[in-house]
């Protein structure tokens, strides 16, 4: 079942083709996914502004643009966190098809806005 080929957006990131227009998700859809228990459930581990009962396993997701230079680099972290940290507990949302490409783009857009 795993792994599946990289999403186009991730490929773009991997190739270092920085393009501001490659990723264009929907912020409110992304917020929905990030806080929904059965989908992204990022809030199980991360503080998200305004989110109810967050976990404290990962860092607070705020001030993201000061930590990631591009949306693509943020996508790479969410697509497969084990690339940056092989021992990470954070699920590989893209590589294991936990979220669809569309959902990933929406989540990236939302997290990028924080």
């Amino acid at each position, binding site marked *: 079942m795993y792994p599946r080929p990289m999403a186009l957006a991730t490929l773009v990131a991997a190739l270092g083709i920085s393009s501001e227009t490659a990723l264009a998700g929907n912020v409110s859809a992304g917020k929905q996914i990030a806080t929904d228990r059965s989908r992204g459930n990022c809030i199980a581990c991360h503080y998200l502004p305004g989110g109810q*009962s967050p976990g404290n396993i990962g860092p607070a997701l705020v001030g993201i643009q000061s930590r990631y230079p591009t949306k693509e680099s943020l996508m790479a972290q969410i697509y497969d966190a*084990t690339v940056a940290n092989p021992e990470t507990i954070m*699920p590989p949302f893209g590589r294991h098809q936990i979220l669809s490409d569309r959902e990933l783009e929406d989540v990236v857009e939302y997290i990028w806005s924080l």
Partner: protein
Amino acid sequence: MKPMFAILLALSLSGFSTLAAAATPEQEQALWQRYFQARFPDVPWEEFPNGAYAIDPIGRENWEAIEEFPPYETAISEGEALWNTPFADGKGYADCFPDGPAIMNQYPRWDRARGMVVTLPLAINECRKVHGEKPLKYKKGPIASLLAYIGYESRGQIIDVKIPKDDPRALAAYEKGKQFYFARRGQLNFSCAHCHVLYAGYVLRTETLSPALGHTTHFPVYRSKWGEMGTLHRRYIGCNKQVRAKPFKPQSEEYRNLEYFMTYMNNGLPLNAPGARK
């Protein structure tokens, strides 16, 4: 497997700068117990069997209120009645377990003749089989009641699982259990160790993750979420499912080896079964 064990422990063992690669079960057990004690310096040794309630004051308050009228009491008396009810052939559990019912710390144990780990639920069903009775289901129901009674009678016994040195298959079973514990699993890609070693004490959504040290001391449990009693392997199934992994069968070789590893790591802790959890 060894590097993984050392790496995961080392990652969180910020207090220990010199971490020798663990080599034997004895060394791994010492490392493991030292790790949890260093991680939770305010938790007395005999408190670890209380799981998340040893480290989460709010959860503890609710739990202490629940323990005033323990929800597992019915199961204990049902179990006692089952223990004392003769089989169709006139015999009973006492014929299979002459030391019983306070025998919980004799399990899980390595059965040399059969070359496998024997757990208490397995031994109960084997007793039934010898006397012509149908086996009990392993997750809940009568077996949980019997275990609740046996556990209650065994309270305070000290865990003392042995890995016989002269049978390499016993060490292999322990190694398999350990491997299972540290293996990533399921679509969400977690290992047991991620949640109960590395992030023990952290909050996952609304749950304080309990430390692995103490995990096998109090089963079966009455779990409010289940609204009934359940066995240790029922809990394994739940923890496998929540990472979207395919669970194994209760009393499968995988889970028996896992129980062997986990209980060995708990050696020295007092038994406090049955338990209550939310």
